[in-house]
C-alpha cells in the first residue's frame, strides 16, 4: 500500500459511461480516494452513505471524494441512484483493478479492491493512507484529521 509522502499515481477512470475523471485535473484541490470491495455489499454501503452525509465537511477542507471499486459504471450508476449518493464512484473495471493495484490495495484472491483510504494533497502527494479490515467501516475521523493537518500547512 502506498504511504504518506509518495506521489499519487495518476489515473483516468470512468465515473459515468461518458465521463472520465483524471486525477491530475484535481491538482490544486485535496482529493479523498475511498477504495472499497463492491457496490451493494452491506458494510460498504454504510460507508458510502456515511461519506454522503459528510460532503459539506469535506468541501470545507476543499476536498473532493471519490469512491473506487472494480464494479462497472452501470453498476455504480444504479447504486448511486438507489443510495442517493452525491459524489462520484469510479469504475476500476478495465483493465480490472489496475488503479487499485497501482495504489497497492488490490486483493488478488477475491478480485476486489481492499477497503482503503487515501488523502491526496493539492500537489498530488499522498498525505495520509489507511487500510481497514475488510469487514470494518473505517468511518471518517481519520480523513478529517488528515485534511485538518493539510489546512495547517
Amino acid at each position: 500500500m502506498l504511504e504518506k509522502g509518495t506521489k499519487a499515481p495518476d489515473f483516468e477512470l470512468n465515473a459515468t459511461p461518458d465521463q472520465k475523471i483524471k486525477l491530475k485535473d484535481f491538482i490544486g484541490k485535496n482529493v479523498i480516494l475511498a477504495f472499497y470491495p463492491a457496490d451493494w455489499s452491506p458494510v460498504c454501503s454504510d460507508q458510502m452513505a456515511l461519506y454522503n452525509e459528510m460532503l459539506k465537511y469535506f468541501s470545507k477542507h476543499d476536498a473532493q471524494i471519490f469512491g473506487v471499486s472494480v464494479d462497472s459504471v452501470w453498476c455504480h450508476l444504479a447504486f448511486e441512484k438507489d443510495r442517493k449518493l452525491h459524489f462520484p464512484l469510479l469504475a476500476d473495471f478495465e483493465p480490472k483493478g489496475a488503479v487499485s493495484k497501482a495504489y497497492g490495495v488490490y486483493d488478488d484472491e477475491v478480485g476486489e479492491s481492499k477497503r482503503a483510504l487515501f488523502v491526496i494533497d493539492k500537489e498530488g502527494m499522498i498525505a495520509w493512507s489507511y487500510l481497514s479490515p475488510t469487514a470494518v467501516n473505517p468511518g471518517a475521523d481519520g480523513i478529517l484529521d488528515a485534511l485538518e493537518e493539510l489546512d495547517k500547512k
Partner: protein
Amino acid sequence: MSNLKPEVSNSDHVQGNDAATITIVEFGDYQCPFCGDAHPIIKEIEDTFGDQIKFVFRNFPLQESHQYAFSAAAAAEAAALQGKFWEMHDALYENQYRLDENLFEELAETVGLDMEKFQQDFTSEAVKEKVDNDFESGVRSGVNGTPSFYVNGTKFDGDAAALHQMLEESTE
C-alpha cells in the same frame, strides 16, 4: 481505537446517576431501524445497572438516507428546551414505525409541550445548530454507522445487545 470528542458536558442530554462509574454515549438516528431495535435494550441496561450507569444521547441523523431523521432530531431538541428531551426521545422511538412529518406535533402534544414554543423552536437556528454539532462530534469521534456506542469515552465495537453482555461480564 476511536475516542469520544468532545467529552460529555452540560450541553449533553444525560439520563441516570451523575456520579455513575459507567458513562454510555449513543450516537443515534430516530429513523434508523437498528437504533429503534437498540432503544428497548438500552432501557433494559438502565434498569439492570441502575445507579452504575449514566446514559447520554447525541444526534447522528443520516439525512440523505432517512428523510425524517433530521426533523425528528430537531423535535427532540425542541422538546429539550422545555425540559422534555427524554419524553420526546422515547416517544419518537416508540412510534418509529409510523414516523412522518405529521408525527412531531402529535407527540409534542402527547408529552405536554407548549405548542407555540415547540413550533418556533422546532425550526430555529439554535436547534439546528445543536443537531449539527452533535453530528460533527460523531464524525470526529469515528462514528461509522448508527447506533454507535461509547463506553467511558472509548468506542464500543458492537450493538446494544453486545453492550449489555459486556456490561454484565464487567460488573460481575
